């Protein structure tokens, strides 16, 4: 697969189908890949794709006031299923022109969650992460632990319906359109069964860990505002100090801002340096959108963004009563 991918990318660069292709290369830490920006055929040799390729690279298409889009006429990007949905999202929200992005789909079997790898290692330093069949082996100086791969896969991947790109210019292999998953929203359904006090205690405990580095926001493909509300000071929406109440406001507003736009790529979860449980509220909002509007972000490039449309048959209880 990797050879096919490299061949395809080399061809794309040589035939100038894209001026830049964004992919991954081996990172400097075990079990970690890092973004690779390819402009010449020689740079293709560093390209990799495996379960360490966590980053949703499409966020570079809109990052930094769309600098890349200014510098390059056509950008190629290698995508997993979730990443491809981000490109679709950008297109339907008029952030990119579809024809300016060359989408290279790769078959995804899920990515490893840093937090879960660390948990397997019991907090000890990890020196290597190897996969053999469905077993993942984590090694350190004085330990070697093998676990089933599903134990270290990101929750986003375990419950992923669309592992492969549905929108692409080229796909390496055969894309799966949709896969069956059980309990897509189990995390929030289980949480909803708890008492209000328990839920509140959990949310408070999680968000009190936040150091407000905004790594979650900055890696999020759906967070591309030129100026985030937390950075505005007239009016000032929230306090800058990492106090729990302000941190909760930050995260909840972000949740609402990405309602119907979150593709559950898990980037925020992986980026958080203090392991805040960011996914649970994202899933809550995703579930609401699914139930109310039967909408899933990033699936259909011809569909209008759910929060920017209105249909008469939609549930209107909240205004009619």
């Amino acid at each position, binding site marked *: 697969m990797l050879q096919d991918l490299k061949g395809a990318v080399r061809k794309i660069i040589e035939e100038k189908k894209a001026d830049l292709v964004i992919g991954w290369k081996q*990172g*400097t*830490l*075990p079990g*970690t*890949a*890092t*973004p690779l*920006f390819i402009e010449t055929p020689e740079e293709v040799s560093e390209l990799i794709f495996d379960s360490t390729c966590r*980053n949703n690279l499409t*966020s*570079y298409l809109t*990052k*930094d*006031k769309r*600098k890349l889009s200014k510098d390059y006429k056509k950008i190629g990007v290698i995508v997993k299923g979730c990443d491809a949905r981000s490109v679709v999202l950008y297109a339907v929200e008029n952030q990119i022109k579809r024809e300016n992005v060359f989408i290279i789909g790769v078959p995804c079997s899920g990515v490893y969650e840093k937090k879960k790898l*660390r*948990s397997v*290692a*019991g*907090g*000890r*330093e990890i*020196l290597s992460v190897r996969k053999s069949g469905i077993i993942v082996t984590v090694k350190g*100086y004085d330990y070697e632990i093998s676990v089933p791969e599903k134990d270290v896969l990101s929750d986003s991947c375990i419950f992923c319906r669309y592992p492969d790109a549905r929108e692409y210019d080229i796909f390496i292999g055969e894309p799966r359109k949709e896969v069956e998953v059980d309990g897509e929203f189990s995390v929030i359904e289980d949480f909803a069964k708890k008492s209000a006090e328990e839920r509140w205690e959990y949310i408070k405990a999680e968000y009190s860990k936040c*150091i*407000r*580095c*905004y*790594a979650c*926001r*900055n*890696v999020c493909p759906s967070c591309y505002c030129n*100026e985030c509300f937390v*950075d505005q000071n007239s009016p000032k929406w929230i*306090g*800058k*100090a*990492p*106090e729990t109440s302000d941190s909760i406001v930050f995260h909840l507003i972000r949740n609402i801002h990405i309602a119907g736009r979150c593709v559950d790529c898990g*980037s925020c979860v*992986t*980026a958080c*340096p*203090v*392991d805040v449980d960011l996914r649970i509220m994202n899933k809550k909002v995703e579930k609401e959108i699914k139930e109310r509007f039967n909408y899933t972000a990033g699936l259909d490039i011809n569909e209008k963004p759910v929060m920017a449309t209105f249909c008469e048959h939609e549930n209107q209880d909240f205004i009619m009563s």
Partner: protein
Amino acid sequence: MLKIKKENINTMIEMLMKDFLVYAPVKDGVRTAFKAISSPDEISLGSVKSEKSPKEIFFPQSEVLFEYSKDSVTVPEKNEKPYLLWGVRNCDVKSIRMLDKVFGNAHQSPDNSMFKDPYWKQRYDSSVIFNFACNQPLTTCFCNWFGGDPFDETGSDVFFIETETDFLFKGVSEKGIALLNKSGLKEDAGDDNAVQKIREEAQARMQPASDITPLFEKLSKIWDAPVWTKVASKCVNCGACAFICPTCHCFDVSDEGKNGKGRRVRLWDACMFPIFTCEASGHNPRGNSTQRVKQRVMHKFNYFMDNYGIHLCTGCGRCIAVCPVNFDIREVIKEILKYEIKDKVTADV
């Protein structure tokens, strides 16, 4: 060195707790953080570095400078006991000493008086730091790039080593020596060979160091070089690296008040954030990611050297471990050192 059996260490810590507020590494799940302890049992020295640096003990992420109402100003009360930091790695000890150059050194105020930061000083000046030798450095550790070593004791008050059965203590500063003298610990020639073996094993774990001697000069000459775009391309401009860094110390001051009363708060800030330099007019002199990455690198390896004769980095490697895109500062330094100056370098833009 002074020796104490491992099983007796809690007695020593309890004694110290009488005179000091003791901060030590405490385990929270698989993570480790420095916290004020109420019992020595909470301490987890372990082999892994704390995820956040202990800088926040002296320089908290958010700190109330004063509270005000229409007719009064209240400055928060001082801590009652002096601080004792237990089990700090040498990279973090050096970082705290660097921060003291900024906050504890006299700087000239606009009215020509010499100003020292009182909030820093009241915590820092009376503090004692127990530097814990690194028996098992991590692969992200690169203190050796800056002349450090897992068993370096530079900057510490007391230096201590863990062996299989004992803890060995050595007073380094006057303050540290005096404290140990009071401790009643017995001098013990000990097994030097055993300590030497631990030390050699630790050093063997360190990755080879890059020679960074030319870095300062090089940085002074490449302001406009295209290498910046190359190294900055993957940075997503979050503040994770700055907030877990033991040496980053930029801050913002925020007034929070209404109805005639409020407070002034000092908060960590980071040069990675777009609004860090955004001016009231809306103009941002560091409007893009490349400029901001350049600022971070320049501050650490050029400006601070210019001002204080030392690099603002001790090679703790935390930023490498937390970066969501694996922006590895070691690779950045190597890339810059490798860069050959070809074009005529223009002046500041």
